[in-house]
């Protein structure tokens, strides 16, 4: 049994995209839940962030997360590159949105935008928190930890940063609207009975998650939370 072979065929590649995509969707839920603590209190958020940073299980999962992102990007890049080469001569007139949705055709572009955003995002929070340090210390319930909340407030004072974050989240929303359904379709789970449900859940999920994410920089910029 040649596993490598079966995961590099056209369907195999898609399975990798689907599995990693679903894994990343689960991560988004956790990420969004924890970050939403900013709407509860400074302490709640910092405690949650500290839990993520110090819990061994989470650190191990984090490795998995980076592996997942990496695989998703590499495989996605290869898919886009392969698919860009299969047409040959381009059509002079294209069907545009008459036969398909623009975002379903633009997963590579949306993915690239998300990737660029991620570089900035990781650099903003993950790098100082895990590697370079330099975050202010704070104390929650007698435990000393990084004041990531303050870091967020600091960062989201710059208008262009907020704008980039909003663009990133916007790209993510469209990426998810197609990606959520697409992952289920790739796994063959979109039987007629469930297809509509999967579509609707996917759209609602994408919108809710991304609205919440978008609300974070906006609230901090506008001073709705402090």
């Amino acid at each position: 049994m040649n596993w490598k072979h079966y995961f590099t065929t056209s369907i195999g590649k898609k399975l990798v995209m689907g599995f990693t995509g679903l894994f990343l969707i689960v991560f988004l839920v956790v990420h969004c839940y924890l970050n939403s603590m900013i709407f509860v209190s400074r302490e709640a958020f910092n405690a949650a962030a500290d839990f993520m940073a110090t819990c061994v299980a989470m650190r191990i999962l984090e490795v998995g997360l980076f592996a997942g992102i990496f695989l998703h990007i590499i495989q996605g890049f290869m898919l886009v590159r392969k698919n860009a080469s299969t047409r040959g001569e381009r059509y002079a007139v294209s069907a545009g949105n008459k036969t398909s949705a623009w975002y379903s055709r633009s997963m590579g572009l949306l993915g690239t935008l998300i990737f660029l955003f991620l570089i900035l995002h990781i650099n903003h929070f993950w790098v100082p928190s895990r590697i370079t340090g330099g975050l202010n210390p704070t104390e929650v319930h007698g435990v000393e930890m990084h004041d990531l909340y303050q870091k967020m407030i600091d960062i989201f004072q710059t208008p262009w940063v907020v704008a980039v974050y909003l663009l990133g989240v916007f790209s993510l929303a469209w990426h998810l609207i197609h990606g959520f359904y697409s992952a289920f379709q790739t796994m063959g789970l979109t039987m007629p009975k469930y297809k509509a449900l999967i579509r609707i859940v996917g759209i609602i999920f994408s919108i809710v998650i991304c609205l919440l994410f978008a609300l974070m920089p906006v609230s901090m910029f506008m001073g709705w939370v402090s």
Partner: protein
Amino acid sequence: MEHYTMNLTLKIWKQKNCKERGRFETYQVKNISSEMSFLEMFDVLNEQLIAEGKEPIAFDHDCREGICGMCSMYINGRAHGPWHQTTTCQLHMREYKDGDTIVVEPWRAKAFPVLKDLVVDRTAFDRIIQAGGYISVNTGNAVDANAIPINKQDADESFAAAACIGCGACVAACPNASAMLYVSAKVSQLALLTQGHPERKSRALNMVAQMDKEGFGSCTNIGACEAECPKGISLENIARLNREYIGAVFSGSEEKG
């Protein structure tokens, strides 16, 4: 229905053979009846070109009743033109009005090289069938036709998948030039029938391997194939092919050869 005539400007892809580069040529046709089929309008144009001492435009067509799958024109950005679930030969000129410009291109995919003008080579589809799109039963081996009852719903779904005419519109319409709808229709048709079960796993693996070898793109679930399929083949078939493929891979089945 009111009948009328129209004058049209046609921009048509001309290409001498698969080696030379093609280009668009512009033609004018006059007094086209709204009653004509799209291909009859091409007949008029070709007669006009022959009378002018020019070479007519080569295009594939045969049954002209929407079932053989031979006709294949990409009309104003749409595979088989704008009518829903309609082949090029069944598209009629009452869709157009006087003064319209129509751009006609061949199916474009590396796996479907242009042979001449609007004619492409679709033998890749034959080779995909050769890879496993059949049930291995020699003539004379069959048991009585009613010996194996098939659940009516499965039989109906199998038939719906079998309605594929192999025209290649799915490949032409897919932004990735993927042949998944075509392959999945055949895999589905046979997987839904008890007769097709013994080979279902190797069939899925082999047909997918051949599809990749032919240079078709990878499916990314865009759905343009379903939207443009003249026979309404459903994306559900692609989901089923994915299931068949996963089942085959995780059960340890192997490709043959």
